[in-house]
């Protein structure tokens, strides 16, 4: 009896699978422009990844409904078929909503935060015929995936990966809208040496592409300014007992501590240091920039400094977006929602101006002009990084993260 059901069972699986594939294809057709959204949406980083993509989704919805506040109206010259040149206002197209007169369709995929999965996701997006990709979040995913996008000739803008290697690979279609670890590391390193006037620091990192990369940049900057790094160690991501590390830092005589990693470990680490009586300044990067970090270390924790981008809560242009986000998703934005929103707007504006989805032309447009975003003007350099990084040092004041006033 068991065997009786086996073949039909197998056949059913095959048929259902094939049918699903077929559905996918037929559903995906039509006269739309496809944008891929890819980030980690499951597992423990799910929140930060999905809020980032939700930011991008809001931008796309605005374009589709023709209500984007940031849309810049350009008068561009278009060559007609008979050779005569006429000036076209893009908003004639834009009046229809979408971009290039077509609606924008997003394909959102989950890379699970795993590099091998990310390559797979990238391949799937390429096969689905996207013209641009906004993502991924983790540097470890963005870097291997970027090769797939670039060999397929697809624009990729990452809203959140800060590892320098991503744009150092020399790919023409790889862009990043956030800062780089070396910019961030330089800011943090300079802060430690110049503003806190210290000469000996200890560094720990979480051994990921992000954490170790950032920690290495801080080390480089700090040492180039004449300081010494007395401890430079990695901690496994699932390690929760830091007492031996803290004792080592205590014994090394470090005057400040830098953590290259996420808030999940950074918070308890900071608490552990304070409990062990190590009251040196605790400095970290954007990975700790989260409310739950403050919750862990306490609302009035002294000597805690984080490097992060500009304070968008103080930018008036950001307010409509933040309100809209809250209205649509029912919760506050994540750390990268604004970046996701900006990245989508930059990509769509560039496509609109290039009047084509051809990656070469879009990339040329992106590198040729400045874009108005809610984080200010963004210009890309030849590598695809933003020209101004905008990293500033933040500290905890009255239970909130606030940018230090004396920052440039």
């Amino acid at each position: 009896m068991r065997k009786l059901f086996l073949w039909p069972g197998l056949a059913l699986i095959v048929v259902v699978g094939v049918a699903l594939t077929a559905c996918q294809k037929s559903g995906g057709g039509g006269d739309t422009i496809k944008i891929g959204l890819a980030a980690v949406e499951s597992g423990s980083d799910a929140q930060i990844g999905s809020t980032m993509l939700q930011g991008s989704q809001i931008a796309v919805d605005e374009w589709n409904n023709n209500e984007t506040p940031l849309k810049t109206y350009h008068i561009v010259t278009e060559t007609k078929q008979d050779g005569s040149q006429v000036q076209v206002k893009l908003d004639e197209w834009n009046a229809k909503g979408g971009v290039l007169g077509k609606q924008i369709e997003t394909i959102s995929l989950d890379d699970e935060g795993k590099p091998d999965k990310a390559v797979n996701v990238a391949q799937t997006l390429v096969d689905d015929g996207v013209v641009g990709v906004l993502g991924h979040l983790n540097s470890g995913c963005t870097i291997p995936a970027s090769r797939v996008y670039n060999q397929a000739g697809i624009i990729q803008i990452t809203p959140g990966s800060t590892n320098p290697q991503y744009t150092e690979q020399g790919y023409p279609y790889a862009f990043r809208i956030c800062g780089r670890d070396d910019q961030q590391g330089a800011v943090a390193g300079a802060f430690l040496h110049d503003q806190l006037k210290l000469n000996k620091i200890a560094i720990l990192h979480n051994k990921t592409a992000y954490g170790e990369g950032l920690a290495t940049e801080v080390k480089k900057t700090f040492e180039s300014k004449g300081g010494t790094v007395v401890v430079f160690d990695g901690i496994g991501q699932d390690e929760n007992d830091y007492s031996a590390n803290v004792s080592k830092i205590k014994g090394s005589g470090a005057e400040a501590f830098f953590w290259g990693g996420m808030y999940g470990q950074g918070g308890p680490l900071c608490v552990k240091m304070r409990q062990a009586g190590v009251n040196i300044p605790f400095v970290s990067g954007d990975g700790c920039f989260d409310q739950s970090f403050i919750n862990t270390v306490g609302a009035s924790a002294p000597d805690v400094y984080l490097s992060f981008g500009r304070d968008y809560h103080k930018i008036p242009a950001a307010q409509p977006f933040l309100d809209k986000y809250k209205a649509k998703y029912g919760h506050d934005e994540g750390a990268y929602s604004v970046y996701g929103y900006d990245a989508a707007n930059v990509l769509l504006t560039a496509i609109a101006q290039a009047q084509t989805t051809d990656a070469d032309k879009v990339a040329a447009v992106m590198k040729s002009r400045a874009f108005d975003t809610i984080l200010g003007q963004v210009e890309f350099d030849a590598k695809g990084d933003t020209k101004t990084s905008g990293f500033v040092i933040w500290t905890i004041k009255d239970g909130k993260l606030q940018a230090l006033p004396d920052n440039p």
Partner: protein
Amino acid sequence: MTDPSSSSTLAEIILDGISRGAVYALVALGYTMVYGVLGMINFAHGEIFMIGMFACVYAIGLFSMAWGDHVLINLVLGVLLAMVFSAAYGYANERIAYRRLRKAHVLAPLTSAIGISTFLQYFIFLTVSKEKVQFPRYYSDFLTTHHLTLGSVEITYLRLAILGLTFLIMGGLFYLIHYTRLGIALRATAQDQLMASLVGVPVDKIIAFTFILGSALAAVAGVMVAMYTNVLVFDAGYRVGLKAFTAAILGGIGNVPGAVLGAMILGLTEALTTLQFGSEWNDVSTFAVLMLVLLLRPRGLLGERVADKV
């Protein structure tokens, strides 16, 4: 590094290593006890430990809602409730996943245990929190901020409690197994379940008792570790469980003092690796120690208890 305080650093590191070892030992005792009686690796023990952590925080939450934040009452009741909860989970595990497989091929209960372990991890992941939850420090502050000064090192009360508890439980288990009637029944079950049942040992109950005791101890360990690291997370049991298991093998699995010895060696290895090479080499050095011991003394440092396996 030429540092004036290097000797005190070394002392502190050794203390850290011992505390870390004690944490592993608390979990390893549970592994070794189940192994001693049943001859199976209870892979889900680490998850029971994790459940104990969460149950304690839930209990504290409930009590503080009920009658306010009384540190001692809430903490003690929380630990007790966590023990009851963990014991219930341990018993449920045994009843659902292992009892039917008691006579099966070795592979079956082990696979079942891995299944339970994965299930429980993701159960907590999906129902409680995907992220790290912090232990309410209001309840652990007394233990973590007060300390005893011995020469140049300071031992917090919490570390003293963990160390004391480790040796207390070790001694208690040793006494239970070797000098009580219940211990005789345990050893009889370990040697031959059929024969034991023939002479009137209630084998099912004895095995259930083993799981309940081991799980309750895991809950105590869980609360201690939660206070010590300040962090509760769904996969906390996996890592500690893996290390604890390695420790149990190091000391000779099934051997109660061996588990503690192995755990101490492991904790010290990790702490000294941190001092000398940096903590990124911890896992590698642990594995090297394990392979070395298996090569030189295949049955563990203190020897596996074969005749009286408990």
